[in-house]
């Protein structure tokens, strides 16, 4: 019984730790750019892509210039 409880506690701790690590690694870099075109198409440039590397700084300029960053 004790062994089973310890296993359950270990599993829960591991799941919590995994969630925390996932959120730390991926939650902070959720920056992205969604672009919609007149033909109805749509593209997302995620952080880390070359397109985002060029365009997200411009979006940040807009945010900073607005005074609400």
């Amino acid at each position, binding site marked *: 019984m004790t062994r089973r409880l310890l296993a359950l506690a270990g599993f829960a701790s591991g799941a919590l730790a995994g969630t925390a690590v996932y959120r730390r690694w991926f939650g902070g870099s959720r920056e992205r750019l*969604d672009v*919609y075109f007149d033909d109805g198409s749509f593209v997302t440039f995620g952080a880390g892509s070359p397109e985002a590397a060029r*365009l997200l700084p411009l979006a940040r300029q*807009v*945010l900073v210039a607005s005074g609400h960053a």
Partner: protein
Amino acid sequence: MDAAAALADLVEISPQIEAAAVVSGDGELAGSVGVPEARAALLARAARELLDGSAAFRSDQGRVTQLRAELAGGDVFAVAGEEQAIVAVAREQVAPGLVFYDLKRCLVALNAGSTGGKAADARQEDRAAERGPGG
């Protein structure tokens, strides 16, 4: 409707929008709200570069109609028409569909006269009715 009036209506009906500006096709500022005056021109130029830069990734010269940049400090939205665009800065965790809807209405109001103002008046009347006679 001029840009100042359209933007005033926009931030009134969309409290999640903290700042907005109307930008012409060449990056000139046509009006702004919630933006420090000294930085408004910089914001307009950056917004135009962002729209033009986004369009440049399409080889067939497709026109960008709207975009959303999700950033750590907030979200940047833009809706572009044939001649001008509206760019807005909103808090994080906003409903993008609602922001795009309000920006499009604002752009229509800019292009088509007083439509947006009447719509804003109608929404204000709706809210007043919801609050009741004492509100």
